[in-house]
């Protein structure tokens, strides 16, 4: 195990005291330390939002991109250099709202990418508008009468869309969360870890207490089989009195996207030495136009 301090960045964290993002940051560091992944072997991608600042607080390669676009940018990097561990950090607005099309598209690809979604069910950084995951009726600055959309269900959508690893963690239980992140990193293929993350400023409903009263661990639930896709999809709808955390679904043996790209068999394209084509190659190319 590496020292978790390995991942400390010199940057002062700017989250509000008590924010659920702290627990996620700690869990991420702990998971990497336990897996002995060095800072240069991993690359983080995030969008814009409170949670998307996480990579800035890590000593690791990172690309803070634009709101909602971390997944496709991470895809490009993974396809160029699949030697890197790739971890995407998105907010719920970022990853499921504006980035929704990339989310449903990555599910169909199964790249070996970990996606940690900081799901506080609100737009934090822009000061408290409702998010796609906000519960129906959520009152916020842009929904003074309560939201009239039904909440986006990331877990059910991921399972429905083809994800091969779908888990939910709680930032109030960073140890358990770290285990989920480790499992996600070890999973070969796309792995979603949706994290219940209290926003202590703008979400007065889905608080630490709210979750503490409700969450239970699937791995402690007799008879729950994460390999059963139908059951997992149904489980993903459980919300209210009881909220499951843990691995909801995991499929084995599905090839990753990179494995199916024939050009990558000999190694990452980013590492090829660049040189002009040989005369023979050039002739072959020209001949196509004779």
């Amino acid at each position, binding site marked *: 195990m590496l020292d978790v301090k390995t991942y400390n*960045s*010199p*940057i002062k964290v700017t989250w509000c005291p008590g924010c659920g993002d702290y627990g996620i940051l700690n869990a991420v560091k702990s998971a990497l330390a336990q897996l002995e992944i*060095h*800072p*240069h*072997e991993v*690359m983080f*991608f995030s969008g*814009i939002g409170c949670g998307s*600042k996480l*990579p*800035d607080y890590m*000593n*690791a*390669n*990172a*690309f*803070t*991109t*634009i709101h909602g*676009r971390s997944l*496709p*940018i*991470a*895809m*490009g*990097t*993974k*396809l*160029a*250099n699949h*030697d*890197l561990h790739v971890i995407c950090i998105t907010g719920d607005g970022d990853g499921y709202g504006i980035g929704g*099309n*990339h989310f449903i*598209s990555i599910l169909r690809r199964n790249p070996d990418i970990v996606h940690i979604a900081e799901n506080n069910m609100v737009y934090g950084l822009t000061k408290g508008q409702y998010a796609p995951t906000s519960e129906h009726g959520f009152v916020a600055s842009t929904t003074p009468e309560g939201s009239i959309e039904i909440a986006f269900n990331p877990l059910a959508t991921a399972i429905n869309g083809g994800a091969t690893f779908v888990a939910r963690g709680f930032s109030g239980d960073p140890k358990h969360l770290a285990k989920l992140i480790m499992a996600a990193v070890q999973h070969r293929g796309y792995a979603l870890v949706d994290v219940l993350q209290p926003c202590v400023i703008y979400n007065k409903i889905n608080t630490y207490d709210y979750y503490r009263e409700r969450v239970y661990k699937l791995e402690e639930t007799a008879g729950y089989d994460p390999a059963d896709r139908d059951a997992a999809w149904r489980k993903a709808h459980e919300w209210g009195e009881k909220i499951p955390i843990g691995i909801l679904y995991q499929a084995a043996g599905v090839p990753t996207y990179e494995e199916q*790209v*024939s*050009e*990558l068999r000999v190694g*990452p*394209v*980013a*590492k*090829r030495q*660049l*040189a*002009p*084509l*040989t*005369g023979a*190659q*050039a002739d072959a*190319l*020209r001949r196509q*136009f*004779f």
Partner: protein
Amino acid sequence: MGGPTRARDTKAGTRAFIGGEQRGEGINDMTIRLAGEAGQGVESGGAGFASALSHGGLWLHTHTDYMSRIRGGLNFFQMRVSDRPLWAHTEGVHILLAFSPEAVTDYGPHLVEGGALLYDDSLKVDQAAVTRRKVQLYAVPLTKIAQEIGGEKIMANTCGLGALAGIIEYPFEFVADVIKKNFARKGDAVVGGNLKVAEAGYKVGRDQYAAKFDWKVSPLKDRPDRMQINGNQAIAVGAIAAGCRFMSGYPMTPASSILEFMAGHAKKYDIVVKQTEDEIAAICFAIGAGNAGARAMTATSGGGFSLMVEALGLAGMAEVPVVIVEAQRPGPSTGMPTKTEQGDLLFALFASQGEFPRIVLAPGTQEDCFHTTVRAFNLAEKWQCPVIVMTDFYLTTMTRLIPPAEFPIDRVTIDRGELLTAQQLDRLAEPYLRYKDTPSGISPRAMPGHAKAVHQTCSDEHDEYGHFEDEDRANRLKMAGKRWRKFQHIVDDLRGPTIYGPEGAGLTLMGWGSSYGAMREAVDILNARGTKTNLLHFVDIWPFPEAQAAPLIEAARQLVAVEGNQSGQFAHLVRAVTGRRADRMVLRWDGRPLSPEYIIEQLEEAKVHA
């Protein structure tokens, strides 16, 4: 809409004064058009005939016009043939092989006086429209011959091509060779049938019409291999030569064929090529790959480029090299998907919020497409910024015959700029600064993955390490200053305009991108007529190469901006930078490409004399 200039309605010229006037005889400079419905073999027939001409050592220029539909409608394939290199198409057509009545109605008016309409005698065509204009009618029983001699109606096309060759008295052997090659995989019977039908058509053409038809085409002695290549293919070949390792895209006319060509060549040339869910993802994939160290590109048209605008700014801020091909078509919005225009220039120059270095290049020919693409990759990596290569429908689909030496694929320069090697990084003594403030503004770049160069890439304003710093004024001035210095220095790597034509001309045409050929031939014609004319053609547009360009623009006596748009966008730019206003503009925005005739006609109408 840039600038306050008034637009005038225009009509295209139909006189074929290029074939006639400039060369003084009717041999080896003529324009042939095949036209009919999509699915009738217009394009494949045309391409075959073009091969036959090319194998005779002749020079060609071809372009196509098709509708935004898959079957039916009206399409054409046009080839201009000559014994000297060609730069442009002509508006006037010498012989039209029509496969449908609409082809006659719509394109008959494009036939020059004395030209001929060749068609199947069973087609009901509006003859009056054509004969009124002193055009000859060659109604040949193409289908009947096909059926009687080949046994198949479908060979009517072959019969028509045979007749065409006969009329222009081009030796049949060249046509025969192409038939043998093209039908080979369908078996001997098909080859034989087509040969017989073609020959029968040839005889009718030669025996009945050759004597009446003034234009002829003869093969040349010297018959070297030449590449027949369009702009998109030249860009793809350039990308492969430059070591492109990654392409992502989303289909959009007229850019799609770059993605398709690259996909078809991916395995052989070691390139990851992916179609994405939309254009936002397309550029994001490319940015991710470019930042990871793979030369990366995407290609689209204006509508898709619109969706790429936000990520374009990301590449500017995060300093990620990426090449974006913007193949223009007439807008606004969906516009005219299969027509041509140069309407996106100012958009490309200023797209995305804020100010950041970007490079905009607009090749004018296939050779330019190749070299410019190679340069685009080098510039993108050297200056760590997005490079936009602008073409348009016309350039992407138009072909010319070009000597292979013009495409020195194996002798391109690959300059990765200040990309630190693993060895250089191993030796690093200080902490690695991704956005190091340097005199050139360029910060040496490390590929993510090296233990000595763990680093952050950031869309927010950041410090030299790449960490968020969106408060500090001094840091802002430092980083914005660094980016600004890049912008100022890039221009040293750019080129001034190409000059063609005599010095001190009384008339100077000024243009950019795909209009090079039309302008060049217009210059030749005008000079031949005694109007001393030259041209300034810009490939490197932004940052504007002021040092090289301003004196030339200054020196122009009468400056005429020639552009495929309604407002004169390049003229706007030139005035903004140099203060010089174009004395006149020749603009075209009806979806059709600029041609020498169009330029000259517009100048005549405006009574421009040098």
